[in-house]
């Protein structure tokens, strides 16, 4: 099974599905949805097989495939996955069917075509898998850029509110980052000996001229910082998250933004180790500012979707300090955070979407006491909120804890300030839940018939797997950390840092 070309098949499969779905006529919308959902399940099944085929503790990069593309430039279709990419691919494969199911009725009321929406989502899955599976810098860049296009149309055509503004802002921000990266890609190609192969470039990473490497690092870093997003490049996310349909927003923050943090880990750190160390304090500072700043803004939001977007920015700050703390613990925590955040925030966005779809508004002030009408759905929102504030017992707690202790061993100050973010997280989540589902019933809600309809069977099927995963990974994250850990160790080795030796005499073992 190891020889099966998992990554290329996995990448192309959703694209084929998208073509099939796109050609289903509008009048057969239900068929299109079923085909799209079935296709995403197919991708999931294949991913599960890949997960089984992956040998934990084996080579750093597995499932390596390479096909010639543009020989004159040394660009190839090279795919390979390390542990970090593998867990992200798994996250994508799990989230897509869930989001498709959650978006079932998103376009029923609008004048837009449902097959087009589901086809776009599958195209988006194709670009997402491609970007994580690529092991050729050129190929990575290609996927990095084209993923904008499906998301642009999803936000612009199927969103709500200021969707045009949000779509254009999203596209331009990402494109600006992408073009900075293009300049760096070209520079790297020239100084790296006219090759795009990740392994070959990583091998010469130490020989680069210091100044050149720092400039090149900056080009990549800006692109990834915009994508993630880190403060101060974050302003597009609340707009996009607020305007996108809830399911797409879940993918936006749950999967697509991870490309930024993944890119930093894979490309910035491994290809420019010296520059990474040099820029680390600045990057940590940005990340910590992001944690506090975004959390404060989240507290003040009156729009549910924008609020969740801001919480994401705060979480990305945690991932950022985890990456730049340069300890295996913090790095593993950061990658685990990427997975858990995808699950937790994905769930939060989807549940918020269910609320918004019923109420027809995403303003917090339009709710109030909704739990009295829909106790179960309110309970799910409560759980999603708790998971997202990293309550012990839910998966995000493990990762947040790992990041903080890993950071504490090298950067005490940052770790202490970041911990304040946890307090603020409790504030924005709990206050949001209090204002929407608790307290006295907002009389306006009783006039909306949909509001008294509690969670449906389809919605249960949507949230159940996410809740289950959050709990399981909260208690037993080992299967995932075992995959992540060697990859992070290899990355830290690329950067050239060693984990600090514990100075405490007693043999108290720290962390998971």
């Amino acid at each position, binding site marked *: 099974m190891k020889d099966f070309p998992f990554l290329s098949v996995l990448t192309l499969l959703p694209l084929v599905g998208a073509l099939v779905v796109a050609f289903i006529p509008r009048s057969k919308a239900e068929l299109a949805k079923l085909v799209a959902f079935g296709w995403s399940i197919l991708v999931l099944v294949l991913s599960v097989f890949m997960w089984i085929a992956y040998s934990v503790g084996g080579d750093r990069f597995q499932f390596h495939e390479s096909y010639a593309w543009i020989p004159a*430039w040394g660009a190839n279709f090279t795919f390979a996955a390390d542990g970090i990419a593998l867990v992200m691919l798994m996250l994508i494969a799990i989230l897509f069917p869930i989001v498709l199911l959650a978006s079932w009725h998103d376009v029923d009321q609008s004048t837009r075509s449902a097959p087009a929406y589901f086809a776009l989502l599958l195209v988006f899955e194709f670009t997402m898998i491609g970007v994580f599976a690529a092991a050729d810098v050129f190929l990575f*860049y290609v996927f990095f850029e084209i993923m904008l296009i499906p998301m642009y149309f999803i936000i612009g055509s199927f969103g709500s509110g200021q969707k045009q503004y949000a779509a254009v802002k999203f596209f*331009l921000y990402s494109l600006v980052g992408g073009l900075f990266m*293009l300049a760096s890609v*070209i520079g790297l190609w020239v100084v790296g000996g006219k090759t795009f192969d990740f392994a070959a470039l990583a091998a010469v990473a130490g020989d680069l001229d210091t100044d050149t490497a720092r400039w090149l690092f900056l080009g990549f870093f800006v692109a990834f910082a915009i994508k993630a997003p880190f403060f101060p490049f974050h302003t597009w996310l609340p707009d996009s998250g607020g305007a996108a349909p809830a399911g797409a927003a879940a993918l936006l923050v749950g999967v697509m933004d991870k490309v930024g943090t993944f890119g930093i880990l894979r490309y910035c750190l491994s290809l420019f180790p010296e520059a990474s160390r040099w820029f680390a304090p600045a990057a940590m500072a940005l990340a910590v500012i992001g944690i506090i700043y975004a959390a404060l803004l989240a507290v003040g939001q009156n729009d549910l979707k924008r609020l969740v977007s801001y919480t994401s920015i705060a979480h990305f700050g945690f991932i950022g300090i985890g990456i730049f703390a340069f300890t295996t613990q913090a790095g593993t925590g950061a990658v685990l955070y990427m997975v858990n955040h995808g699950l937790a925030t994905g769930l939060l966005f989807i549940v918020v979407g269910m609320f918004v779809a019923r109420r027809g508004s995403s303003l917090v002030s339009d709710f109030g006491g909704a739990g009295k009408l829909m106790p179960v759905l309110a309970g799910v929102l409560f759980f999603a909120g708790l998971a997202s504030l990293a309550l012990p017992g839910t998966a995000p707690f493990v990762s947040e804890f790992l990041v903080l202790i890993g950071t504490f061993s090298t950067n005490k100050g940052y770790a202490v300030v970041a911990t304040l973010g946890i307090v603020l997280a409790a504030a924005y989540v709990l206050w949001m839940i209090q204002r929407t589902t608790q307290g006295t019933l907002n009389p306006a809600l009783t006039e909306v018939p949909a509001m008294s309809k509690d969670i449906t069977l389809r919605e249960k099927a949507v949230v159940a797997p996410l809740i289950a995963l959050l709990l399981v990974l909260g208690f037993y994250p080992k299967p995932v950390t075992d995959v992540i850990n060697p990859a992070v160790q290899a990355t830290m080795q690329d950067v050239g840092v060693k984990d600090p030796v514990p100075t405490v005499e007693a043999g108290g073992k720290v962390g998971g």
Partner: protein
Amino acid sequence: MEPLKLPPIEYGALLPMLILFGAACAGIVVEIVVPKRARNVVQLVLALLAVTASLTAVVLARDVRTVTIGGAVAVDGPTLFLQGAILVLGGVSLLLIGERSIERGGAFVAQAAVTVGSQKDTRQATSPGATEVYPLSVFALGGMLLFVAANDLLTMFVALEVFSLPLYLLCALARRRRLLSQEAALKYFLLGSYASAFFLFGVAFIYGFSGGIQLSVVHEAVANPQRSEVLLFVGLAMIAIGLLFKAALAPFHVWTPDVYQGAPTPITAFMAACTKVAAFGALLRVLYVAFEGVRWNFQPVLGVIAILTMFVGAILAVTQTDLKRLLAYSSIANAGYLLVGVLALNESGLSGTMFYLVAYGFSILAAFAIISLVRDSDGEATHLSRWAGIGRKSPLLAGVFTFILLTFAGIPLTSGFTSKFAVFGAAVEGGQTWLVVFGVISSMLLAFPYLRVVVLMWLSEPGETTPAVSIPGFLTSAVLALGVIVTVALGVVPAPLIDLTREAAEFVR
């Protein structure tokens, strides 16, 4: 007195040009002999046959590397590649020029001076229109072929005039918005004449400096200057002005928006695709063959011009409300990117620029083909506001146009990305990283106007005034299909064309 000795002539190497000039003359005879009714078909077939024959001659001569007619014409890799590119793009433009099914008589009118709405004009509107556009276009194509092959500065000047004069005329022949068209033609003619005069004056200076007009003689004189270098630099500057004008580089670009907007759309497409190839072909030859020795002197100056061009094009494109003008400014910015490739002054720069020219030519042809389809009772509806919501009415057309715009924005998997990569990569390799940084920044600016059009087409609600989209005739459909297929192919599998440009990337002296 010594008897005049005729230089040996290799007719095989000149065959592509001879075929076109012959066919253009035959086209004039056709105008006289063939009855009006059949003229259009005969002319179109004749022109296409000539282009095909000429292209065949280029392909057959693919291994020829020679300098002939006493050093006036050089046939080498870049010559043959660029001639091939001009012929292919020219052939595709001829299809657009020959389109008659969208509007009776096509985009051209025989007597533009006739008062609009008069009885004579009504008669004219029912007649098949101006068929002299075919011989004129073929003359222009022939001139372009010679322009990229010219190995001495006087031949280059003659070729410049041979392809410019028909273009001036063609610009004035628009059926709709005639005043705009005539104004454009006059502007183009006057400014073009000034540019030609500069070029000629520059040639005189270079002759004074090197004692010859052949590029190889100039090359040697540059290496071992016998006379004041002031002559060299003044001459080089003036020659450059002439060429930069044709290539539409800032600050010699001001004619471009007016001419692109006023000219009949097929002619605009023809100019945007073929003139650009010809102008950059000549610029490449002059800089790489003759003046390579003073690269340190002209590289910074032209670098500033490249940056200026990219930014003027990108910033002014943002403010445009007319699609043809928007594309004109975008083509100015693209000329800036091309110049970045030229200034790499290495083999990758040469091959990258040639790749870019072909890729851009096909995309811009497709873009103008689409513009010719969106019309109302007054002809083409090029104002941006009229395109609102057109994606709902004709998703296929809007989809194709979106794709072309994404190409211009340089999104991967389109030829726009691979070609940008080719020139930027060459420039970094040639030590011109600063140009690439500015190029990348201007690309960011330039993405905005394209995106605005995409938003308008798809995300805006269709208004009352959203015009109808004509069903494309066979010829326009062919152009669109070709443009899109080539754009995708060069974006996804660019390797064959890249290899071809690399094999061709060597000048003879």
